[in-house]
């Protein structure tokens, strides 16, 4: 099949590459034109000098990090326990983890606002910290499908049940098993789930906007309405950041136990044989 129609596939591929490349080039080009008549990085400088930008970005990074931590703490023990002890619950747990793909974030936050609004038993939206908490919770829910799948795949790859039995037969305690055997082995999976969560939450708009948080997503939308060149600069930076996150995720996903971008304190480096 290699001998026929090479022109067709080449044209299709070329067209796709053009379609992918042109908007990036256009945004980049546009972002350099802030100063009339010359190409400069002024738009980038202007973005970084904006205190609101720094605040919004910091807030979103913190919220995303909290969502990652919360999500991992929720998903890892659950996935482990379900694989080991409650395989019957597996379809239920998996189904729930997929629900956020079906329920748009607008709908989710709508429900949460009504549920935890001022007149409810758990009025989270009345206080600032409560609203922040609700935002993080929203992000945890939003990233649940990705986190769960990443962790569950990681556990599937390393026969959790046998490893646990092997460790128990050698006399290890349950906590020791989780921290010295299970976690190091699925670390790559957790990290890749974390990066995915981060890339979803950092620029998230609907939940942040409806909870009136001054997060990065609403900030970008506002900037898009007020300014011309800065949004293009932001688009380029976001795209670069997404690349970096995906690259890191791939690196972690392909990483084998023992080699590492970072090492956990309880892991001693073993001498090469």
């Amino acid at each position, binding site marked *: 099949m290699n001998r026929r129609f090479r022109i067709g596939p080449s044209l299709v591929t070329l067209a796709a590459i053009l379609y992918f490349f042109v908007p990036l080039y256009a945004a980049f080009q546009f972002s350099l034109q802030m100063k009339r008549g010359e190409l400069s990085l002024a738009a980038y400088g202007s973005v970084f000098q904006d205190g609101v930008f720094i605040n919004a970005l910091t807030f979103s990074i913190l919220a995303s990090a909290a969502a990652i931590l919360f999500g991992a703490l929720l998903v890892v023990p*659950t996935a482990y326990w379900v694989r080991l002890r409650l395989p019957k619950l597996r379809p239920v747990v998996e189904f729930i983890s997929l629900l956020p793909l079906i329920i748009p974030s607008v709908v989710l936050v709508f429900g949460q606002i009504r549920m935890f609004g001022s007149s409810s038993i758990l009025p989270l939206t009345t206080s600032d910290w409560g609203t922040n908490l609700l935002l993080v919770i929203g992000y945890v829910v939003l990233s649940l499908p990705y986190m769960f799948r990443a962790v569950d795949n990681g556990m599937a790859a390393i026969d959790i049940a046998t490893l646990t039995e092997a460790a128990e037969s050698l006399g290890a305690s349950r906590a020791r098993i989780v921290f010295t055997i299970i976690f190091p082995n699925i670390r790559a999976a957790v990290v890749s789930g974390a990066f*995915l969560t981060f890339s979803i939450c950092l620029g998230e708009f609907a939940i942040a906007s409806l909870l009136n948080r001054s997060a990065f997503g609403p900030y970008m939308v506002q900037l898009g309405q007020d300014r011309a060149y800065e949004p293009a600069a932001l688009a380029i930076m976001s795209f670069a950041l997404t690349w970096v996150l995906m690259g890191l995720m791939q690196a972690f996903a392909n990483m084998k136990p023992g080699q590492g971008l970072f090492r956990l304190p309880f892991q001693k480096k073993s001498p090469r044989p």
Partner: protein
Amino acid sequence: MPYLSFTFIFLIAPVSYLVIGAFQSPDGRFTFDNMAGLANPQIAASYWLSIRLSFASALIGTVTGLLLAHALILGGMPVWIRRALTTFSGVASNFAGVPLAFAFIATLGRLGLVTVTMKDLLGINIYGMGFSLFSFWGLAITYLYFQMPLMLLVITPAIEGLKKEWREAAESLGASDSQYWRLVGAPVLAPSVLGCFLLLFANAFGTLATVIALTGSNFSVVPILLFQQIRGNVLYNPNLGYALALGMILIMSVSNFLYLFLRQRAERWQK
């Protein structure tokens, strides 16, 4: 179990609240009025617009993504091109939302690079011809930027699952290229392609941030209408808002479940 309690409190309960609310009148009695209210011209137009836009963007995404996947996998492209585009697709399919809108404003906006270049070099004023980035087709083209890569990623396993031996067996039995595709290739791929189309449809249907960043709140697809309802109760009836949300959930569920069902069916074949 913390997982079940957490998801119950923060996912299932809020959504159930909306679902139940969709069948209640403001004073708490059971009613179908809200669901019937979805037929109100403003809401119905909104759904119709969303469905048309999602359908168009999913269709274009499916066709172009399929063409691209076919070209990369079966068209004898060098491996490095294939790998580069696959990695890029991983990024681009996650590059939705606000920054994507900005990039397209710089490309096809009134002062966008492509708009200006076409006018200066070719004398074609696309805005003069009725095109606008902030319209139906402008949005469809923008959506394509994450739809096509997503299609490439989800359809690749299915195309790779077309075994070389099937083609060879067909050829040895005397089948021509088109006979192979008509009798074997296309029927084997069909459930996967249809499934992926539905996934793309759902993906477009739920898109909010890109639309807001491109059009403000002027382009009233369902998520925008709901967004405005939450913001300011533009429907003047909270329970009607619940019905609006339920309608979204239903459309998303149907397309996602069909996607999962078709994928399962396709996997059964490809063992």
